[in-house]
């Protein structure tokens, strides 16, 4: 397959008078790691919610490969290979950590409709392997509601990876983590992007992470794309500096 994996064309979204996305156009290639940065209120989370189907755009299209995904419900987008984590980690509180991942695995295999198959024995080894991979294998039997927030974010990542996505969306995946943990987590994700050809689109406030783990950086400001390029190019872009430092460009 040639051409980019994700194509976003002229996407717009407004909440009343507040413009969250204005004519946004961008692409992400398979296996590419793209960071989205921008000041608070730039439209990063809105973009993620539109890509994931949680929000409906006012205009524009989103395509995954040849398939148009804008306008589809979240579960349909997920089945086409877009997995995501949320800014505020969302997990299943009444289940163990391992069961959280098992749910994702059985949903991925289309087994969620059976009234007879017993859920807790399905895909247990795979779930354990995924948890080991994100570094919380020891917590597998714990109730998800008793975990520290940082660990919940890892559970979310394991859930997302269980879906074997073509595109992984991560909204502030390392928020609340210590510096060493951050870089370890992002190294893991980078490795997956390289080995499985999974594209990664992520937002992040930590610029060290952004500049060391992104192949390309998109800069948003007030819903507009003001820069799109390699870390080096973005670093020296005057408009980006203005948006971040608040001086006139």
């Amino acid at each position, binding site marked *: 397959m040639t051409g980019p994996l994700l194509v976003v064309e002229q996407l717009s979204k407004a909440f009343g008078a507040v413009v969250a996305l204005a004519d946004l156009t961008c692409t992400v290639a398979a296996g590419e790691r793209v960071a989205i940065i921008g000041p608070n209120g730039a439209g990063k989370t809105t973009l993620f919610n539109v890509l*994931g*189907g*949680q929000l409906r755009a006012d205009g524009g299209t989103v395509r995954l490969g040849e398939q148009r995904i804008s306008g589809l*419900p*979240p*579960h349909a987008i*997920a*089945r086409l290979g877009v*997995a*995501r984590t*949320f800014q505020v980690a*969302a*997990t*299943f*509180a*009444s*289940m*163990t950590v391992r*069961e959280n991942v*098992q*749910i*994702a695995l*059985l*949903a*991925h295999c289309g*087994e*969620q*409709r*059976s*009234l*007879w*198959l*017993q*859920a*807790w024995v*399905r895909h247990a080894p795979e779930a354990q392997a995924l948890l080991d991979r994100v570094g919380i294998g020891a917590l597998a039997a714990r*109730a998800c*509601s008793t975990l520290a927030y940082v660990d919940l974010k890892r559970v*979310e990542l394991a*859930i*997302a990876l269980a*879906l074997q996505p073509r595109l992984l969306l991560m909204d502030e995946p390392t928020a609340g983590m210590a510096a060493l943990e951050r870089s370890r987590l992002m190294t893991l994700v980078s490795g997956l992007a390289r080995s499985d050809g999974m594209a990664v689109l992520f937002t992040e406030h930590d610029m060290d992470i952004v500049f060391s783990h992104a192949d390309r950086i998109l800069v948003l400001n007030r819903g507009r794309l003001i820069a799109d390029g390699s870390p080096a190019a973005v670093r020296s872009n005057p408009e980006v500096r203005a948006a971040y430092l608040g001086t006139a460009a």
Partner: protein
Amino acid sequence: MTFSALFIQLLNGLAGAASLFLLAAGLSLIFGVTRIVNFAHGSFMMLGAYLAYSLIGRLGGSGVGYWGAVLLAALGVGSLGALVEATLLRRLYRAPELLQLIATFGIVLIMGDAVLHIWGAEDLLGPRAPGLQGTVSILGSAVPQYDLFLIACGPLVWLSLVFLLRRTRWGLLVRAASQDRVMTAALGVDQARLFSGVFFVGTMLAGLAGALQLPREPANLNIDLAVIADAFVVTVAGGLGSISGAFIAALIIGVVKALCIGVGEITLFGMTLALSKLTLVVEFMVMAIVLIVRPWGLLGRPPPASPGIELRELQQPPGRRFAFGVAAGLLLLVATGFVADEYTLVLLTEIAVFALFALSLQLLMGTGGMASFGHAAFLGSGAYAAALASRVLPMGWALLIAPLVAGALALFCGWFCVRLSGVYLAMLTLAFAQIVWSIVWQSDAVTGGSNGLVGIWPPAWLSSPQAYYLLCLALVAATILLLWRVSFSTFGYALRAARDSPLRAAACGIDVRRVRWVAFALAGAFAGFAGALYVYAKGSIAPEILAIPRSIDGLVIVLLGGLQALSGPLVGAAAFIGLQDTVARHTEYWRAFVGAAILAITLAFPAGIVGTLKHWLRRERT
């Protein structure tokens, strides 16, 4: 149908809409600020009617006396409302919405029996309002002056409420609290006083509605539940918390109902349809259309994300100890079948049936997180399906048909219900059940109307209480094991995932709405099966099996046993049916007793019997 007759019906409908609006406005106001859906709102209206009756009798029929009595009745009801808020409901503000709703139903039961005790069971017709006894001639027909007065009351109360909310300091605080309770409290507003005030105004409006209704309709003991379904429909269609929305919805529903009665029969494609019989269905259809187009009602806003039920406790598949316990219990119950007397066996049969009913509700509420306030609709439709089938088919077929019919009905109702969540869903299920009830009640030819159907007995070899008990036990036990299996199946987990975090479940590729829909249908089918077993145990069936109190019985059983506990519904059914049987033998006021039990559970033991026992055991061990 002449135009003038239609016009009269229209005025009649508008007069009805006015009292409906008074009721709905109070309900909406209370919900907006306290987030409590006051089930007892209809009871406050009923109390208003009775209180007005007595006060008018005491203060005389003169103009001043009459209107003074109406006003005093409204104020009296408002004071009681504030008192109830301050003593009981205030303890529940932090509880899940579902518990609050149930607690207010406890108040319904207590108030119902209190009114019965004070005023007796006879309907009480009040005198006509002085000064408004005559009629006015409009378009050649005589229109009662009182109807015109009521029609004027609606907009008058609406405008006063809007003025109160928009132009006074108190209204400002109420609006602030509706938007953000925590922030309002942080700004130093005395919440307790504000909430009591809102309850006073809201219940006073209900009392006023009751007092004003007296010249049109006698005070009777059925007002409470009859009007609460109407009021729910109006508030939900208008948008919870929106006074103006309630006003518009009351008008629409009042007018549409009046048109149905006015038009009477219509002939479409050679079929004659009696629209006048469909008023309740039509009211529901208006709400359904509104909710499909605008899920939060005409003028409502999406509620702050708060699930009706919050369950965060870890739920694990049952272990070997549980299996042993179940096996031992089953053996004991089988053995009981051979030694117990007939009375006990009949009682145990009923407990078994209600355990199954409650378990089906638990699948919906516990595993699915969808609180249904109309689950008896499926119990009852299964029972009626079996009763009707038994006329032409043997019992085996009737037992098979019942869950299919109930499941199909649940599939239909569920399509609407799963679009909503929390209290909206609860109120919609309640409205559905009320519709089913009224259809059954009105369809004399098929269902026997209020008399129901009689003479539905199992074949001869099952006719002894012992034989039927053992059959029932076997079928219920098998079905319960199946339901438990479903709870821990991949579907059950997907359902629980959708309850825990719809956002995350959808992002995993689970079609949340569909999973909920299937669960709704399944729960309905299992309830229908329970209904079929019930009908053969009793030999007869009456519409009360579909009525709201039955649905609430199911809720109470589930909560009494423990929403979270696998065995909760079984323990709950035994405790509830056993208690009811004991109390009903000693006093006619057993409803009040059930109400008190509900309040006790919701206030003191929200985890239920099994849940509380588990907590105690855990504390012992650590």
